[in-house]
């Protein structure tokens, strides 16, 4: 028998923690074990999953994006304000935002800037733009978007279909295409990619653009679910997306990421919150419990992981 490879293990662990958590939720709240139940549990995880993919792309080239939350909020504001009445304007703004992301990636590479600081600065910029576009919460979701987000496909709820789709597309992009290989190559050893004659500058630009694109999808999906937007709507996504990537088996440096894992990580995080509210804790400790559950889920991952490492040795 061949031992499972590192990448399979990387995927197996998050999947196992999701399954355990799901079983616990079903046990406490059997009502969740239904079409509507699953949809309610997971539909808000869809935008988080998209944001997590965006973060994962950035992490795969050894950078970190502290502005994802602000940027998703910005995309949501643009969608809610312009998409219903002036779709062309909305698309133009969003396209410009993707271009801005690509430019950021290239500047970060060209000037050898720390991505954390640049994106920290950018989070203020996106936040400011959102406040200007939408000073008070409001806007509305375009009807088609709302229709997509609340649609009820047969047998499998929309939330699950969407998650599968995101995982599939991201997996293709990151793990199967040449671009994905080069992108992860830059994370693993940028110098050797450059020595093989590739332009790291363009690879980074394209990676950031792809991340911007997924973040925009996240904002759009969020508006579809929430029906409106505000400037602070997704600020939490910055940390959630980082946690999701790590939970999904990704690593901060070295280009080791897993798109399917990232989606599972996002679902796990969403589920962890629900699990807690089903427990009915004292209000004083509800916030703390969210920390505790993160610790437990990650601790679980690493306990399993250690066994995985032992198996790996000859």
């Amino acid at each position, binding site marked *: 028998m061949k031992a499972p490879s590192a990448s399979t293990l990387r995927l197996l662990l998050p999947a196992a923690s999701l399954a355990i958590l799901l079983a616990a939720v079903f046990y406490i*709240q059997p*009502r*969740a074990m239904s079409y509507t*139940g699953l949809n*309610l*549990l997971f*539909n*808000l995880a869809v*935008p*988080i999953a998209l944001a997590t993919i965006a973060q994962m792309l950035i992490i795969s080239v050894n950078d970190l994006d502290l502005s994802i939350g602000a940027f998703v909020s910005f995309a949501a504001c643009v969608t809610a304000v312009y998409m219903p009445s002036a779709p062309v304007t909305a698309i133009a703004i969003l396209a410009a935002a993707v271009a801005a992301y690509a430019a950021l990636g290239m500047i970060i590479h060209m000037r050898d800037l720390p991505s954390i600081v640049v994106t920290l600065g950018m989070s203020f910029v996106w*936040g400011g733009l*959102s*406040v200007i576009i*939408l*000073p*008070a*919460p*409001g*806007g509305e979701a375009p009807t088609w978007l709302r229709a997509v987000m*609340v649609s009820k496909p047969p047998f499998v709820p929309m939330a699950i279909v969407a998650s599968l789709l995101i995982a599939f597309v991201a997996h293709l992009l990151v793990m199967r295409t040449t671009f994905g290989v080069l992108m992860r190559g830059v994370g693993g050893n940028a110098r050797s990619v450059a020595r093989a004659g590739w332009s790291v500058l363009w690879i980074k630009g394209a990676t950031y653009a792809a991340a911007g694109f997924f973040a925009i999808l996240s904002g759009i999906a*969020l508006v579809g*679910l*929430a*029906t*409106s*937007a*505000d*400037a*602070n*709507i*997704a*600020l*939490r*996504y910055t940390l959630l997306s980082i946690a999701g990537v790590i939970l999904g088996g990704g690593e901060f440096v070295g280009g080791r990421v897993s798109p399917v894992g990232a989606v599972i990580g996002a679902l796990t995080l*969403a589920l962890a*919150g*629900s699990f807690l*509210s*089903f427990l*009915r804790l004292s*209000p004083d400790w*509800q*916030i703390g419990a*969210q*920390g505790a559950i993160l610790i437990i889920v990650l601790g679980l991952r690493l306990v399993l992981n250690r066994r995985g490492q032992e198996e790996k040795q000859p």
Partner: protein
Amino acid sequence: ETSGKKIALSNNYAGNSWRQAMLTSWDKVTKEAVKAGVVAAADSFTTAENQATEQAAQIQNMILEGYDAIVVNAASPTALNGAIKEACDAGIVVVSFDGIVTEPCAWRIAVDFKEMGRSQVEYLSKKIPNGGNLLEIRGLAGVFVDDEISAGIHEGVKQFPQFKIAGSVHGDWAQDVAQRAVAGILPSLPEIAAVVTQGGDGYGAAQAFEAAKRPIPTIVMGNREDELLWWKKQKDASGYETMSVSIAPGVSTLAFWVAQQILDGKDVKKDLVVPFLRIDQDNLEKNLESTEKGGVANAEYSLEDAQAVIAGK
């Protein structure tokens, strides 16, 4: 008859004294109601971070858990609409208060935040008929309440044009943030006649003025005990005059009773208004006495109070 019904409180933030007082009031009043058999359960839930998305997920969980009514203090007036609509569709009564929601199927116990802002300027116009420069301390940018109060203040300034807003900072409804922001802008401001605020920031402003050794203007307070104490000290020392206004954290208990009444089959208007809690020069001492040390001036509601509000009295 609602003895079999379960009510949940969905709260988006617990990180300040006002919210803590709100949760305490809820706990106190609902515990008794549950004991008396008025309702079967009244649980409260708070999200870890002040985010609409997290609260939407929380409301969806409440739907799954089968609550009959959800009382919500919303992070955003609109961003929860999707989740609230789902709750309504599942036959759940949704009552929003303080942070109200625009979804038509929900009830709203609103505070007229605009009026709260406007009334500050009106008060000042009586106290300082000649007018002067105002410093405006706002709340958290991009949040509905901040926008409303600020709009009210600007309306007030339009109404009483002897006042002019000389500077405006965001204090995020926190004493230390307000203090920091005011201290930063103060050196470059002309003489300030009064400070208009949103609550939770008056004491910080006072400290900043004191530290800069500037004459203390009339600072409108926000019902926090430290603000009232400071005011009392100034009043005793030099006859300092101001007013204090905020919404009572106990409004959560009003929302509870309203939800109970709706569940009981009473016909309740979708839009209810509660007055804000205002403290003036003459009732300062009385209010200070009844305010918990380090807390917020509060008023809890009984079933009768709620019935009176519903009746539109």
